């Protein structure tokens, strides 16, 4: 759901982290649902990575069959309530809606949220566990990919155990997406739906410390690695250890774990990077009361990886963008507190391997931006250690998988979600991770069916 | 006078005749509404007949409801 409106900042910081969009009223939902043409062979379905039968779930809203509607969504996408909020819908289903050139596209994300919100209020399980087949699967990570794989495997009759390093399950959705876009309750409900299918979720359990990879491989018939990505890597510039330097992932995560504090009120904040995480960090800083929030990016708006609606949202929140600006040094005072960020002006040069023009520093164009806080958002590191413990082939921490089965170089180990994202494999979206989880489940099931056929 | 006030007035009259021991001897309905003839009870010497014209729909319901309650 991307029609966010920013710029509504309250002095009561807790209010700033409440979900921005209130959700459709019943009337809005019925009117919007009845606008849907119920296309045959609908392009919106094809544009959805999880192939939700969108016209079908919308028709069910129109007919008052909300249970059927929610089931249609969640059957195709176990984290459909989260996706209703965080999907870049204009790039996906809504972008494909045939009404785009006719009037305006159907608000599919809002309708999906309406149906799944209804299901959340019911507090009744929508799915039943499949007949147990005696096979055990371990899933490492309880983000969208892990949850999705767990749900599907459990429906197929597998005994699933999820190992989660954090205190609570949900992964990226739980800790990585700002709560004014995705409230914790939604993620908790989705986790609960999976738990109700007899999936055992072991939180506070780090694979490699609390349980070894060997133990996992011995105790389970299959292992799914869905660990996502790690924290933000080092910038490699002076001053990174100063007080007031944050990792964007950690920065957002804190707002999802505890009540907001006043420490950023009135402060100047600079975010380095212009991806979706950078936007999340910037808008979070605004909501924590920062007086001025800037994003510095070494390329231009055309190269930024943030979605257009994310960018619009940050602009509405009053975030400033400094293009063609690269940090060279974080400046501290005697108390080791950040006081400024030294930057250099850049120019775009030749086209690099990724098809984008390479930024080139302009000699002697250094200047200093005054700031109290620097937040790093230049991408995420990889869980290389764990990947290597399993002995999986990878390239720079991106696990290599068979694109159809998501099987890794180790026969019994599968991988999905952000851990396989990068180097041209897939798209880093919650909805893609959910789809990969489903496909892993299918592939694992197929591997056993094949086995029994051979036997 | 609102129709409701008019009804209350007609109801008050109906109630007062019943309270005074009058009885209905005739109910007649035509294009002008309902005409109810009340008569004093048999014991009370000379019989006096009062005609009440009911103009409101509510009063026309009320008079019949009173008869149903009485039975």
């Amino acid at each position, binding site marked *: 759901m991307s029609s966010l409106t920013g710029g509504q900042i309250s002095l009561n910081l807790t209010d700033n982290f409440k979900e921005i969009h209130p959700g459709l*009223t*019943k*009337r809005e939902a019925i009117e919007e649902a*009845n606008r849907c043409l*119920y296309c*045959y062979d609908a392009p919106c379905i094809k544009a959805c990575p999880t192939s939700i039968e969108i016209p*079908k779930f919308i*028709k*069910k809203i*129109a*007919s*008052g*069959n909300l*249970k*059927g509607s929610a089931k249609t969504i969640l059957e195709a996408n176990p984290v459909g309530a989260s996706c209703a909020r965080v999907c870049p819908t204009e790039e996906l289903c809504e972008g494909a809606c045939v009404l785009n050139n006719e009037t305006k596209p159907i608000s599919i994300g809002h309708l999906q949220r309406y149906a799944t919100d209804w299901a959340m209020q019911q507090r009744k399980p929508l799915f039943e566990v499949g007949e147990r087949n005696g096979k055990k699967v371990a899933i490492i990570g309880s983000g969208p990919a892990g949850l999705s794989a767990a749900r599907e495997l459990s429906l197929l009759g597998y005994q699933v155990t999820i190992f989660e390093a954090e205190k609570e399950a949900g992964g990226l959705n739980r800790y990585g997406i700002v709560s004014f876009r995705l409230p914790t309750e939604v993620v908790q409900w989705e986790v609960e739906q999976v738990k109700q299918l007899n999936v055992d979720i072991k939180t506070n359990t780090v694979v490699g410390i609390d349980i070894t990879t060997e133990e996992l491989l011995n105790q389970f018939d299959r292992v799914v690695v869905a660990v996502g990505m790690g924290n933000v890597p080092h910038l490699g510039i002076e001053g990174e250890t100063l007080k007031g330097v944050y990792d964007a992932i950690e920065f957002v995560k804190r707002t999802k774990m505890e009540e907001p504090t006043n420490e950023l009120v009135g402060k100047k904040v600079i975010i380095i990077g212009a991806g979706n995480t950078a936007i999340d960090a910037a808008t979070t800083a605004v909501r924590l009361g920062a007086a001025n929030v800037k994003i510095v990016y070494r390329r231009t708006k055309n190269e930024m990886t943030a979605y257009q609606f994310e960018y619009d949202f940050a602009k509405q929140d009053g975030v400033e963008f400094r293009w063609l600006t690269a940090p060279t040094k974080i400046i501290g005072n005697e108390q080791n507190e950040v006081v400024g960020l030294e930057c250099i002006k850049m120019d775009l040069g030749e086209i690099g391997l990724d098809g984008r023009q390479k930024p080139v520093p302009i000699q002697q164009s250094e200047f200093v931006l005054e700031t109290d806080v620097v937040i790093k958002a230049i991408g995420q590191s990889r869980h290389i250690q764990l990947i290597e413990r399993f002995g999986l082939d990878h390239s720079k921490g991106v696990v290599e998988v068979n694109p159809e089965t998501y099987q890794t170089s180790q026969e019994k180990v599968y991988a999905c979600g952000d851990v396989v994202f990068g180097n041209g494999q897939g798209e880093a979206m919650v909805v893609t991770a959910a789809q990969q989880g489903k496909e892993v489940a299918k592939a694992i099931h197929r591997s056993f069916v094949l086995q029994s056929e051979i036997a | 006078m*609102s*129709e*409701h006030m008019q009804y209350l007035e007609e109801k008050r009259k109906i109630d007062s005749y019943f309270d005074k021991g009058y009885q*209905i*001897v*005739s*109910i*007649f*309905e*035509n*294009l*002008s509404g309902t*005409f*109810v003839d009340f008569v004093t009870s048999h014991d009370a010497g000379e019989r006096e007949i009062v005609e009440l014209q009911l103009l409101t729909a509510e009063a026309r*319901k*009320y*008079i*019949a*409801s009173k*008869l*149903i*309650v009485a*039975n």
Partner: protein
Amino acid sequence: MADLRINLAGIKSPNPFWLASAPPTNSGYQVQRAFDAGWGGAVWKTLGEPIINTTSRFAALSFNGQRVAGFNNIELITDRPLEVNLKEIYETKKRFPNHAIIASLMVEPKQEKWHEIVKRVEEVGVDGLELNFGCPHGMAERGMGAASGQVPELVEKQTYWVKEVAKTPVIVKLTPNITDITVTAEAAVQGGADAVSMINTINSLMGVDLDTWNTIPHVAGKGAHGGYCGPAVKPIALNMVGECARNPLINVPISGIGGISNWQDAVEFILMGATGVQVCTAAMHHGFSIVEDMIDGLNNYLDEKGITSIMDIVGKAVPKYSDWGDLDLNYKVVARINNDVCINCNKCHISCEDTSHQCIDMLKNEKGEPYLKVREEDCVGCNLCAIVCPVEGAINMVEMKQPLPSMTWNERQSSIARFKMDKVAK
């Protein structure tokens, strides 16, 4: 999962959703696609002497941007030889033995014609027959369809002829183009009908083109009346089903037809006495797949209500459908406006002020903000304000406890009867 199977006068189908005899059931290809999509039964496009159709046949009414609120057609019965249809019926039945296939029939009102066609279609294994006494256009000009369906004697006689030879259940499909449908329904029952179905389409002219002055639709500049159906006719059909269901002389099952577009419409017809429903316009608008939500929605509804079989709710609302003279005159509801929800469009005020009983006041509170309030003592409880109100929950019709006992018009008239005198107006 509730049991959605129905048994209508001996015709069984896996769910109550049948396709009505119409363009969607023209061929085996279509009916088989429909069964694959989940439809429980199909009434085959009417069989009879193959006709010739015009081109330009349909027109639809868009209501404020909502397409196909009503639908009109001048298409006639099948234009294919009987043998072709029978072969396809046979093949379809073989592939879908548990689905209901009902042959819709229309021939001239002659005993031998009816005998011939009944015998021939029953030979291929149909589950039942539906006599088309309702088609209002074209065929009626030739003395068939609605022309015979409007004459009770003809309905009775033709039903009787069919029953003389029929081995499968006979449904008589009735036309709404008649003052009182219970008269022809009774005639059908008298003739031995095992069930009745209603309604066929209503005589209609969809429109006139403002530029060419042609009718809509037109055939080379000329038009003829068609048959009207679709969501707009649902209330008319529902009443006719209800009137037949509560008539003790029409003691046969009813197949409900007319504007049914989703599971909610179907439940209404079933509650009002239909044992199953037939659908056409909604399928023509959206394709056969709409039946998926009909089945799913109906199933969820029954589960939610704790009802195990759809047959358990057939006719459950019929005792609530009565005559005006049996309605309680002392029952009173009044409109109440929830000012927290009201958006102050004043539509309730103006509808009441101009066209009802002038009891909604436009007021201002102490801050000078406008609000609306009902003078409940003057409110007649007509519902108009709640009908025009665009916001759910802004106007509620609230029941007022009455000190007076229930009194129907009929009871009132009998209570005052003994005081009525022969008087002339004064």
